């Protein structure tokens, strides 16, 4: 690696950052710059993927400072998968955003031009933060990147400019800041105990009260950021009230950052005890059930989708807890698969929900079938995404759930299987509400103009949702990528 040509790891963080600055400075060219930056980042990730496939884990010290104190970037299979996913979703959502912010009309919040101008810098900033989180190898860097994500995410959440969005965004911001501060405090404790900040330093550290407290703080902070029940209070409103592309990014990516850090912490371990893990599972169960019940009661489509995010996050925690502490070295795969599945599907679903809302003019579930226009493709995308989220074969969501239940069953933890089943049933129940609404029954005798419901903007949700279903067939290769560089040690 030469000094002239920066390595792809650094590029994956810097390209979106520079893109964000450029897009901010040149608002008129923002979409072009934004898409260009995303594509360039994707290219860098592709190069990175090539390297990881060849070499396994790659470490890059930044600015000559290496571990244990300095900033070091690391890329392995897990990071690569997340990077690829993020690039994919960013591309999809970005394309969707082109259409979503195309108009000039004001819908009750910010003028479109303003939204368009701000979306791209925020999106790219978010991308910077996400890629940073994936590639960071030390706690402090993770904290910083988390904050970058938080700020960008809040910006995205309030982009629509409506009162509801601003309120939800503010609540989100408080939760996010609080979580970050807890993380910060936790990081400090870790440093206090071990004198190091790199993740590898955690592995060798002897068990102590301070370290446990540090883990506790970090876990609570991350739980707040990933909206683990009962710390999910901020999520539904924030995600439901943002504009569709923002919701997609928030739901698909932002919450995953916290989960990713959790995975990394678990990988670095020693994880603080079986009880904590079980607690995570129990809280996950709570999320699955509560999220499901709330989604059943939701009156608006986007709120339903947001509550489904709460439930799905819970499921990922259940996946981590499925086989206890010993099983963690395998459980992370199930969690990672679920993360990927949820990200792709939820991005597609939020974009689709946004399209449906745009076309029909509202997203009240009880009146979905009363429009004169039928957004057929968006509904198809929604349905496909729902298939993956429910976990019906052959979707990626199904593979994730299968892995979850397989591991739980092998470990004899039938209760986690039962939780998964219950979650699946609930998800069927609440998605059916929406899907039934899509099958219009002519309660409105308006002439049906089918073609008005179609647009190029339907392509990104359809593609994303289609991928969510189709990627299940590629579960083998995806698992192979995850295992590159053997995170969590050797493959069992």
């Amino acid at each position: 690696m030469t000094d002239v040509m920066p390595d792809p790891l650094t590029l994956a963080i810097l390209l979106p950052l520079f893109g964000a600055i450029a897009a901010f400075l040149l608002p008129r060219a923002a979409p072009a710059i934004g898409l260009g930056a995303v594509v360039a980042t994707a290219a860098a990730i592709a190069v990175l993927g090539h390297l990881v496939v060849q070499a396994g884990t790659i470490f890059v010290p930044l600015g000559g400072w290496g571990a244990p104190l300095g900033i070091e970037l690391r890329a392995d299979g897990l990071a690569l998968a997340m990077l690829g996913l993020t690039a994919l979703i960013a591309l999809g959502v970005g394309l969707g955003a082109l259409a979503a912010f195309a108009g000039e009309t004001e819908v009750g919040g910010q003028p479109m031009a303003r939204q368009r101008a701000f979306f791209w810098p925020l999106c790219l900033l978010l991308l910077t933060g996400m890629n940073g989180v994936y590639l960071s190898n030390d706690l402090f860097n993770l904290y910083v990147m988390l904050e970058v994500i938080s700020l960008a995410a809040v910006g995205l959440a309030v982009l629509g400019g409506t009162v509801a969005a601003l309120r939800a965004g503010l609540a989100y911001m408080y939760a996010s800041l609080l979580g970050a501060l807890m993380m910060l405090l936790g990081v400090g404790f870790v440093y206090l105990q071990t004198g190091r900040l790199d993740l590898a330093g955690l592995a060798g550290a002897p068990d102590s009260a301070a370290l446990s407290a540090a883990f506790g703080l970090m876990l609570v902070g991350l739980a707040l950021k990933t909206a683990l029940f009962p710390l999910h209070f901020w999520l539904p409103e924030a995600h439901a009230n943002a504009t569709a592309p923002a919701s997609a990014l928030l739901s698909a990516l932002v919450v995953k950052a916290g989960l990713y850090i959790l995975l990394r912490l678990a990988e670095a371990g020693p994880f603080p005890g079986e009880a904590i893990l079980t607690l995570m599972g129990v809280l996950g169960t709570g999320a699955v059930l509560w999220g499901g019940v709330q989604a059943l009661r939701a009156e608006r489509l986007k709120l339903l989708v947001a509550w489904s995010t709460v439930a799905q996050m819970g499921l990922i925690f259940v996946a981590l807890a499925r086989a206890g502490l010993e099983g963690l070295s395998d459980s992370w795969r199930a969690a990672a698969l679920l993360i990927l599945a949820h990200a792709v599907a939820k991005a597609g679903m939020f974009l689709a929900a946004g399209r449906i809302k745009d076309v029909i003019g509202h997203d009240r579930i009880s009146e979905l079938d009363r429009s004169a226009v039928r957004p057929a493709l968006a509904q198809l995308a929604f349905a496909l995404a729902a298939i993956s989220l429910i976990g019906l074969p052959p979707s990626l969501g199904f593979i994730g759930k299968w892995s979850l239940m397989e591991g739980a069953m092998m470990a004899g933890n039938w209760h986690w299987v039962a939780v998964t089943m219950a979650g699946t049933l609930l998800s069927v129940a609440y998605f059916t509400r929406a899907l039934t609404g899509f099958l219009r029954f002519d309660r409105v005798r308006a002439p049906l103009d089918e073609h008005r419901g179609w647009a190029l903007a339907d392509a990104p949700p359809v593609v994303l949702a289609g991928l969510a279903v189709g990627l299940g067939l590629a579960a083998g290769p995806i698992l192979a990528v995850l295992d590159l560089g053997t995170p969590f040690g050797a493959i069992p």
Partner: protein
Amino acid sequence: MIALSQATIYGLAGLAVFGLGLMGVLGAAERLRRLIALNLCAAGAGMVLIAAAWRSPPAVPDPVPHALVITGIVVMVSATAVALALIRRLHSLETDTDD
């Protein structure tokens, strides 16, 4: 019996401040008050870290926690700014709709 060193006292005080801030964030209803409580949290966290950086007097304090704290302050300042901007906009929107 652990001797209450200066660092420990600072640390405990910092935790106390953090706790107070936490109570504020979770308990307060007013937006501004919650924001300030958050800042209090940040200050508490900073105190803990600085206390952690403090070694016995002859040694030079560890610079890493300082770096953490500084970053934290920067983040907090910018976040506070954003939050304030949001609160203002929200306020104006709400008064608009109230009228």
